[in-house]
Structures are given as structure tokens and as C-alpha cells.
């Protein structure tokens, strides 16, 4: 199965960078997987994931949960309606990209978002203390989710 892992974020907006940082670390470990970083322009992602049948998006989210909480958001689930990508405001968000892809009947058959609750999203080129301290734990959780999702979707096929 053709797999794409997308780390999304803005490294100058504090915790918004978490998706990018995790993508960089995953790339060191999963050398055979296509792992790319994105600033979150949904219009570009729409064409980026064309041709892939398994897509994993790693992105910072705003939620009522504790900073560092890792969650799985499936586009067909109720959670997706609450999904607030940080760069949602920037033109055309990932959420809009997923919805447009669905409308165009081009949504990859397996797509999930691994959301990480951030605390600070102001202009700053470092993570909040909370996410810095929790980084290894967050990374390990994301890695497990990635492996599990790949295994789960392999079994479906």
C-alpha cells in the first residue's frame, strides 16, 4: 500500500511546530516511508496525497485536553467536525482539503489525523515548556499509532 506521512505545522508558531518535529524524527526511523513536511496549505495537500491510498497527517490541534494529549481523528468520525487545525485560518485548511477531496471523490481510502494538543501558538520558534518536557512521550505515542495504523490497514487489504 502506498503510504504518505505528512507532518504539518509552522515552526515559528511555537507548539504548531510539533507535527514537523515528529515527522523529522519519524523520517530517521522509517526510511522506506514517504514522510514530508508541510506548512498546511490545503490546496497543495489535495494534490500532494493524490495517488496514495494510506495517508497519516500529524498536526497540532487546539482542544480542551491537556497539552501533549495525542488523539486520533478519523475524517468519518464525529471528532472530525470538532477538529481545529491551527492553520485553519490560513487560506485553505487541511480540514477543507479533506472535505474538498471527499467532494471530488479523491480522498485516499485510508486517512487519519494524529492530533497533538498544543498550548502556545504565538509567534515563537520553540515549543512550550509543556510540550518540550513531554516530547519523547508524545513521539513514542505517535510512533505506536503510526505502526498500529499501518498494520491495521494492511490487514484490511
Amino acid at each position: 500500500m502506498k503510504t504518505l506521512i505528512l507532518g504539518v505545522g509552522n515552526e515559528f508558531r511555537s507548539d504548531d511546530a510539533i507535527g514537523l518535529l515528529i515527522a523529522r524524527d519519524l523520517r530517521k526511523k522509517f526510511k522506506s516511508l514517504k514522510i514530508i513536511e508541510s506548512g498546511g496549505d490545503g490546496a497543495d495537500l489535495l494534490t500532494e496525497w493524490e495517488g496514495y491510498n494510506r495517508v497519516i497527517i500529524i498536526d497540532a490541534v487546539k482542544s480542551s485536553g491537556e497539552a501533549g494529549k495525542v488523539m486520533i481523528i478519523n475524517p468519518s468520525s464525529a471528532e472530525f467536525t470538532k477538529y481545529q487545525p491551527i492553520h485553519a485560518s490560513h487560506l485553505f485548511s487541511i480540514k477543507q482539503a479533506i472535505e474538498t477531496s471527499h467532494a471530488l471523490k479523491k480522498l485516499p481510502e485510508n486517512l487519519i489525523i494524529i492530533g497533538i494538543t498544543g498550548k502556545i501558538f504565538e509567534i515563537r520558534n520553540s515549543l512550550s515548556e509543556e510540550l518540550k518536557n513531554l516530547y519523547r512521550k508524545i513521539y513514542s505515542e505517535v510512533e505506536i499509532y503510526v505502526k498500529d495504523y499501518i498494520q491495521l490497514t494492511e490487514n484490511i487489504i
Partner: protein
Amino acid sequence: MRSRTIKVDYLARVEGEGSIFVKIKNGSVADVKLKIFEPPRFFEAFLRGRKFSETPDITARICGICPVAYQMSSVHAMENAFGTEIPEPIKQLRRLLYCGEWIESHVLHIFMLHAPDFLGYEDSIQMAKDFPEVVNTALKLKKIGNNIVIRIGGREIHPVNVRTGGFYKVPEKKELSVMLDNLKWGREQTISSVKIISGFDFPDFEQDYEFVALHNESEYAMCEGKLISNRGLDIEIKEYEHHFQEEHAEHSTALQSSLMERGNYFVGPLARFNLNFNQLSQLTKDTAKEIDFIPEIKNPFKSIIARALEVLYAYDETIRIIENYEMPDKPFIEIRPEFSIGYGCTEAPRGILYHRYRISDDGLIKDAKIVPPTSQNQKTIERDLKNFVEKNIGLAHQELTWKCEQAVRNYDPCISCSTHYLKLHIEKE
């Protein structure tokens, strides 16, 4: 007295964190404010003390949509400061990179952000359900623009290959020629798109504007030229601050620009089209004539047509540049800094972007001034809203709100460069 309020909490198809406030009292517009409350980002301040050569990489970070514009204005300002002559092949490569950014930015705005207004859709997602082919074509058109920026700039967002004096690395002709088939396809598709867009239903709303744009007799100005207007402005870039001023309005964290003595003015695709029609390619001019879109166009809602014609021009121009491309002997010209002041002004997708730097003998920036296009259009947007609401005061609130949002989107405002959303608030007493 009856009071009504219309509030739009999330206006997603605009870049920027701010709000529009319209107050209607006794049947006429009492107040209009384009409120920008995004905290200032102090780019000009933290450029101080940095090396002159760092400006393209630092200023590119101001905007994820038009980083090339920031890079181009900054390198031209530095080269102006040090009297650097740039060879023609490097100029052409810069023009090619800029065309890529125009295509990316314009296509996104036309199809994903603005067209839904004219077709009666809440957003492009709803539009995609009914017109999948239009959205698919738009995505391909945009991707071709991205590919140009990647090929020349190294990556599509915040390109890394631009430097003062030229580029770090320049492509061979064959690396560019492989894009030609896609570019020719894009050009054909854009002609069809222009015709479709020209058939949209446009509100009857002609206004008197002072249009301001860069002008160059020998080409449709992007990077070099003088600043002109339809009301007699004709100045060199270095004279900019003698004619334009910035003011702080209490309701905005972005400074508002105006022309000294004459007030607000209009920059962007419609201004360029009106002032530089003769410099467009023959194909673009013929297409414009075919749809009876001839200067001077005074309806801001028709900016979407000017924007689409500029996409056509950008496609036509990229093909011309690539077909005539000769790889530069050297990717860049070495620059030796000295105490100086440099001025640069280039045409960002949304209009003129002015940079001025004072440099010390050791090449460090002493001070900087950057005036982005949206701050130049702010006052015009406010005036449009006032006049539009007054003219359409009888419309139902919902429709008036929708039209006001559309009127803001005419300018493709990039309030952002750090943005989040824009709230529209109409209050009636």
C-alpha cells in the same frame, strides 16, 4: 429606533486576523472600520543589525503566500543600494519565479476563495460537489505554479535559492523545458477560465480610484520600473516616501497607507491591468478584448477577471522565458557592501510591495521599512464598504453581509502575514 446586528464570526476565505465593522444609523453609513488586531510582528525592528544578505530569507517569512515578492523587493533594494547590475538571464529567471508565485496565489484566490461568492456557494467545498472539473482544473493550474517555484526557488513555500545578486544555483535549460507541456496546457485552460469568469454576475458598483502600479515601458512590470497612477503620479522608487505616508489608526495594528494630499489609492491586479494593459502579451490582450474587458475598469468586483488575465499572462510569459532561456554564466553577482540606502518595489500578487534599507559599511542593516500591498489597500477597502453599503442599504441583512464579505475579498487581502480570521459586524440603528 430598531437596531439590527449582523455578525459573521468566521470568514474563512480571507487571509488575515481582523474584522470589519459597519455601523448604519438613520439609514446611512455612520462608520466603517477595517479592524486589524493581529499583534505587530516587528520584522522591520529585528532586521536591524542583521547582514544585508539575510534579507531575502528573513523577509520571505513574512508571508507563506507571497514569499517570492518579499524576496524580490528585498534583493532589488540591496542591489539598488550597492549599484549592482544584474545580468539579463538572472533577471529573466527572477521573472519566471515571480510568475510561478502569481499563478499559485491568483489561482488559489480565484477558484477556491472568490469564485464561490459569484456562484452562490458558501465555500469551494460546496462548489466542488457541483463543479468537480473546475476545482480539479484549478488545483492542477496551481500545482504548475508551485512546480515553477520549486524548480527555481528550491521549494514552494519560503524558497531557499534566492540571494542578493542572483541565485545560489541556476537550472539548466532542459530542467525548465520539461515544464513546457504542462505550461501550454495551463495556458489553454486559463483562456477558458477567463471566459467563464467574465460571465459571472457582477454587482453594479463603479468607483473613482487612483490606481497605482509599477510601470515599465518594455514589459508588464514585476520587478523594475517607475511608480505611476492614473492621476499623474510618475516617480522613481526612491521617491516613494515623498509621496506616500503611513498612519496609525486606533482600530488597526497595521499601518494604513495613503497618498499625501490625495488620500487612498488602489494597488493590485486591477491597478496593474488598467495602467499596464499595453505591456501585456498579445494573447492576453486579445483575450481581454474578446470578453470586452478593456481599461479603465472601475468595478472592484471585476478584479477577479483582471486576476485571471494575469494568470494567463503569467503562463504565457513563463513559456516565453523558458523558450528563450540561456543559462547564466554565473548564478549570482558578488556584492561588496558599503554605507548606503537602497530602495526596492516589486509587484506582489496583491500589489506593490515597497522595501527600503539603510546599510552600514560593514553590511549590517541600520534600519528597514516595509510597506505591504494590503496596508496600501486598507483605506480603499473601507471606502468601498461605505459606498457599497450606502448604495445597497435596502438589501436584506444576510445578502448585504454576503456582499460586504465579497467586497473585501475583491482585494484578496493578506491582512495576515500572520493571520487567522476576519469577523464582519454590521450594526444598524
